[in-house]
């Protein structure tokens, strides 16, 4: 298979009546979707763009988005999804930065685009399906995109804070979809609920894996509408769910019993893209005994490179599983030389394989820092054990160095979060009176619980080497968080 849109064309012939996408309480079959995709591709072809033109799309969890996405791919152009909250200014900025040929959005841009001398065309997202139907006719012929053509440019903020456009080839998009397909053993009749912004890499990849496997995807606009989330699980007999760590925490706190009811129905839950507290993993295992629970490791630069079913292999703290179908994972030293790693001899995680990005758009220097000869060099500290399990312990910048002994804060935090009285915690370096640093632990206690530092230290001693146990433990009311709810390590003092 060279592209997801090619898979779509095959499933449209084999199972035309199967539902492909559900969104906004509307659904579309493989047969209908393939027709609309061809129609939209024909519309784009008629615009006379050069192949490989960038088309920016203000994303929304809806059927028109799927039509536009695969129509762009089929016409040989590059799909660039943007945040749904982006304003007119941002849309124009990205279109300028990418020298885009067309913008698809629900924002009225008619004033601004005429100012730009028709540099790019604009179509309202509300008209995508209508236009597609208008341009469709029997007997349209297209060349499918080939493996090395750019498929998508995904915008990511990453750790530097500056927005980067990750270029993914059709090869990478198919490879990452296969990683998910084989990693999670997606069933033939799977119904995947994706309650996340569809422009995010982890979300759009679940659309892709569903189309690749000829199964059904249900798109929903995030987790804030908890009622709708459970309505959809029930109504569409959902069998797998994409759930980022923040969503897991939210559902566990607000609706644990409601989720527990679906243990028999749910084949798996896929979590990835951020640090995932061990305590939340334990809780999911407890309430969903019949469901597979995957934690996936990957990034926009190299997607879903490993998966770990923590419901089967309990107790391997910080494990991210074994490499997926198209991924090769190895550990390197500071000079990027491969090393034989172990728990005692950790290094940095490096990744090669089909799912590796082409590079950052228009940023060769930045690309060179991360990607060399087909290998993505991450800042993630890890090792591989004798059985081939990969462990990811934290980001390089977060590591606490105590006289040469290195402590990954997440390793300590994961142990502490398993202690019953603790609601949240953060481990960080604090300067001591001698001018050095000591590891310090701030904890937020659960309501009605008081900190007993000696007992907590005894708990840590069961799981951690002595030098990793923080010298100072302090109870605080809250921890600094970033706007998306992750621990803000820079503000810990």
């Amino acid at each position: 298979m060279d592209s997801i849109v090619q898979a779509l064309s095959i499933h449209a012939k084999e199972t035309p009546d199967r539902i492909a996408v559900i969104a906004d309480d509307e659904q579309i079959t493989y047969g209908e979707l393939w027709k609309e995709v061809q129609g939209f591709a024909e519309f784009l072809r008629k615009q006379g763009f050069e192949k490989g033109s960038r088309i920016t799309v203000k994303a929304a969890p809806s059927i028109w988005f799927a039509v536009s996405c695969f129509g762009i791919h089929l016409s040989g152009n590059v799909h660039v999804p943007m945040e749904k909250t982006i304003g007119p200014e941002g849309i124009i900025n990205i279109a300028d930065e990418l020298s885009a040929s067309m913008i698809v959005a629900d924002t009225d841009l008619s004033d601004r685009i005429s100012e730009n001398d028709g540099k790019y065309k604009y179509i309202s997202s509300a008209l995508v399906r209508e236009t597609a139907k208008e341009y469709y006719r029997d007997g349209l012929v297209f060349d499918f995109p080939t493996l090395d053509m750019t498929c998508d440019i995904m915008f990511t903020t990453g750790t530097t804070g500056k927005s980067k456009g990750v270029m993914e080839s059709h090869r990478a998009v198919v490879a990452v979809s296969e990683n998910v397909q084989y990693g999670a053993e997606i069933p033939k009749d799977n119904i995947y609920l994706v309650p996340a912004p569809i422009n995010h890499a982890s979300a759009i990849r679940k659309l892709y894996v569903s189309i690749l496997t000829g199964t059904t995807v249900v798109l929903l606009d995030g987790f804030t509408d908890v009622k709708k989330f459970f309505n959809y699980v029930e109504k569409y007999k959902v069998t797998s769910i994409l759930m980022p760590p923040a969503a897991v925490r939210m559902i566990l706190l607000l609706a644990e019993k409601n989720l527990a009811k679906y243990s028999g129905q749910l084949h798996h839950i896929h979590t990835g893209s951020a640090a995932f507290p061990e305590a939340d993993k334990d809780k999911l295992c407890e309430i969903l005994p019949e469901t597979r629970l995957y934690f996936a490791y990957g990034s926009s630069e190299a997607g879903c490179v490993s998966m770990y079913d923590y419901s089967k292999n309990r107790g391997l703290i910080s494990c991210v599983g074994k490499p997926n179908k198209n991924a090769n994972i190895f550990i390197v030293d500071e000079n990027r030389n491969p090393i034989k790693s172990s728990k005692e001899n950790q290094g940095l995680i490096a990744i090669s394989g089909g799912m590796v990005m082409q590079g950052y758009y228009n940023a060769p220097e930045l690309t060179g820092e991360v990607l060399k000869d087909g290998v993505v060099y991450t800042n993630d500290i890890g090792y591989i054990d004798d059985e081939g399990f990969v462990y990811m312990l934290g980001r390089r910048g977060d590591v606490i160095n105590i006289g040469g002994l290195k402590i990954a804060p997440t390793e300590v935090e994961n142990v502490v979060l398993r202690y019953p009285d603790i609601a949240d915690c953060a481990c960080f370096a604090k300067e001591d009176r001698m001018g050095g640093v000591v590891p310090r632990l701030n904890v937020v206690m659960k309501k009605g619980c008081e900190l007993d530092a000696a007992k907590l230290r005894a708990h840590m001693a069961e799981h951690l080497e002595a030098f990793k146990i923080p010298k100072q433990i302090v109870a605080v009311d809250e921890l600094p968080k970033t706007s998306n709810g992750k621990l803000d390590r820079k503000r810990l003092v």
Partner: protein
Amino acid sequence: MLDRIIEILQGIRDDIDYYSEDSLIDDGIFDSFDIVGLVSELKDEFDIDIIIDDLTPANFNSAESICALVKKLQDED
């Protein structure tokens, strides 16, 4: 009650005019973490039980709609 709810909301973000803002969820001003925090504060403060059927954007888009939800739940008690 509205003033107390606004105090709670200001604890989450203090740069919003809660008397006029009516798209706290729809415009992404509050994310899922904010809602979790808010729900637990409302439960404690007003001694109410919030179930998933109440967890809709319409109920949480403005201070006024949150106030109406709390009143409704108190009446049901």
